C-alpha cells in the first residue's frame, strides 16, 4: 500500500501539486486520471522518488520516504517496477540485456538463473524469442511489453505505469491493460497507472483519483463513475458524445433492471 499525504510541489513559483492525499491499495490497479497539465506525471514522479515534493508525506507500507536513509530508499526503489511513457529501454542493449539489467545489477543470480527469469517474464508478456533483438527492431506495443517485463523481473511490490497506452492502437492498448491487470493480481503489487485513456479507465481502473489543476477533484471506483454527479469528473470522463450516450444507456439499463 502507498499512502500519500498532502503532497505539494511548485516549479518556479507555480504550484503544480497543491496538497494531494490518497491511499493506493495493494493488489489493485489504482489509476490517476486527469487532463494534460493536471499534474499527473509530477504526482507519479513524486511518488516514485524522481521529484522531491516541497511538502507532504509519502509512505510505502508504512515506511515514510523522507525519513528513510539513502540505503533504505535504495531498498524501496528495488521494490519498484516502472513502465515509462516512452518505454525508456536502453537503446544499446538487446532485449535480454534490458530485461536482465536489474537482476545483473542487484542480485547474485547465476547467468543461467538470470536467463531463466528473463525467458519467464518475456513469456508472461507474450514475447518469447525476442531476446537477441534490439529495442529499435520491435514495434511500439512490443517495446511496451518489454518495458513491462523489465518492470516485473525483480518481483516488484509497487508497479508504476505512466501513460502506458499512449501512441498504441486500441487493440494493443487493451492487451497492455489486460497485462497490467493480470500482473497486478499475479504479483500482488500496488499498481499505479497514470492515464487519460478512457478505455483503460473503464477496463482496469479499480480505484481512480481524478486530478485537476493540482488538486484531487474526485476519488472512487470504476462503477461509481457512472453514478457520480461530480462536475469535474463528468466534464472529464463524459466530455465526448459517445461516453455521454454510454452513461445514459448504462443508467437506463440499470433503472430498468
Amino acid at each position, binding site marked *: 500500500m502507498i499512502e500519500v499525504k498532502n503532497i505539494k510541489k511548485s516549479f518556479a513559483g507555480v504550484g503544480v501539486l497543491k496538497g494531494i492525499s490518497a491511499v493506493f491499495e495493494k493488489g489493485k490497479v489504482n489509476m490517476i486520471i486527469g487532463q494534460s497539465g493536471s499534474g499527473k506525471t509530477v504526482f507519479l*514522479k513524486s511518488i*516514485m*522518488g*524522481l521529484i522531491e515534493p516541497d511538502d507532504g508525506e509519502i509512505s510505502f507500507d508504512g515506511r515514510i520516504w523522507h525519513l528513510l536513509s539513502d540505503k533504505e*530508499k*535504495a*531498498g524501496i*526503489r*528495488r521494490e*519498484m517496477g*516502472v513502465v*515509462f*511513457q*516512452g518505454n*525508456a*529501454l*536502453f*537503446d544499446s542493449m538487446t532485449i535480454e540485456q534490458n530485461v536482465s*539489467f*536489474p537482476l*545483473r*545489477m*542487484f542480485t547474485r543470480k547465476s547467468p543461467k538463473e538470470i536467463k531463466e527469469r528473463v525467458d519467464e517474464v518475456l513469456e508472461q508478456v507474450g514475447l518469447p524469442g525476442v531476446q537477441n533483438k534490439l529495442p529499435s527492431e520491435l514495434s511500439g506495443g512490443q517495446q511496451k511489453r518489454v518495458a513491462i517485463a523489465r518492470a516485473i523481473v525483480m518481483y516488484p511490490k509497487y508497479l508504476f505505469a505512466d501513460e502506458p497506452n499512449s501512441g498504441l492502437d486500441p487493440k494493443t492498448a487493451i492487451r497492455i491493460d489486460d497485462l497490467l491487470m493480470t500482473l497486478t493480481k499475479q504479483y500482488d503489487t500496488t499498481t499505479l497507472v497514470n492515464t487519460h485513456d478512457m478505455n483503460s479507465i473503464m477496463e482496469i481502473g479499480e480505484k481512480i483519483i481524478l486530478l485537476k489543476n493540482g488538486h484531487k477533484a474526485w476519488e472512487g471506483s470504476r462503477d461509481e463513475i457512472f453514478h457520480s454527479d461530480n462536475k469535474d469528473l463528468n466534464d472529464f470522463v463524459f466530455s465526448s458524445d459517445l461516453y455521454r450516450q454510454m452513461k445514459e444507456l448504462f443508467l437506463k439499463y440499470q433503472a430498468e433492471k
Partner: protein
Amino acid sequence: MQGTMLKPVLKFIETVGEYFLLLKKTLTKPQNNKIFWEHYLREIDDIGLKTVGLISFISFFIGGVVVIQTALNLENPLIDPSLIGFAAKQSVILEFSPTLSSVILAGIVGSYIASTIGTMRITEQIDALDVMGINSANYLILPKILAAVTFYPFLIGMSMFLGVLGGWVAGVVTGLVGTQDYLEGIRIGFDPFHFTYSTIKTVVFAFLIATIPSFFGYRVRGGALEVGRAGTQAVIWTSVMIVFWNYVITQLLLS
C-alpha cells in the same frame, strides 16, 4: 542595470556549482564492479579506439607541416638544419599532441558524450536508472572518466610518435632536412620531464573531455533541439577549459 549585468555571472557560478555537485555524485564506488568494468571496456572502444584513426591521420600530417614551415623559416646557412628536427619535436611533444589533439577530441568525443547522455535523459532512460536505485551519474559518467584518463595518455603518446614521424617523412620527401640532421635534432635537449608535463596535461584534459560534455548531456531538459544545443555547448566549454588549463599547467610546471 547592475542586476542585468550580475545575472550571467550568477548563472555561471550556479552552473559551476552544479558541475561539481554532479562530480560528487559521479566519483563514488561503483554499485556493481562487474558491470562497471564491462561498461569501462565499452567506453574504451567508444571514446578511445574509435578516435585512433583520426588522431593518427592529423598527427602525422601536422608533424609534416610543422617541419616544412620550420624549415622554410630557417632558410639560413648559419642555422644548423638539425634545429628543424628539434623544433618539430618540441612543438609536437609539448603542445601539438597533448593540447591540439585534446581540442580535436573535445569536438569528436565531447559531442558524442553530450548527445548520448542527453538523449538518454530526454527518453527517460536516466530516470529508469534512478528509479531502479542506480546512481545514474556514477553508472554513466565514471566509466567514461576512467576510460579517458587511462586511454588518452597512450593515444597522445602515439600522436607524438606519429607527429615526429610525419615530420621526418615530410622533411626527407621535400628534401628540406636529411634523416641524420632530423634524428640529431630530435636528440638535442632531450628532457624526460617534457613527457611528464605532457602526460599531466593529457590526464587533466582527458578528465575535462569526459566530464564537461557528460555534465551538459546530463542536465538536458526538453527535446532534440536541446540535445543539439547541449552538444554544441559541451564542445565550446570543453575547448575553452582545455585552453585555460593548458595555460595554468604550463605556468605551474614549466615557467
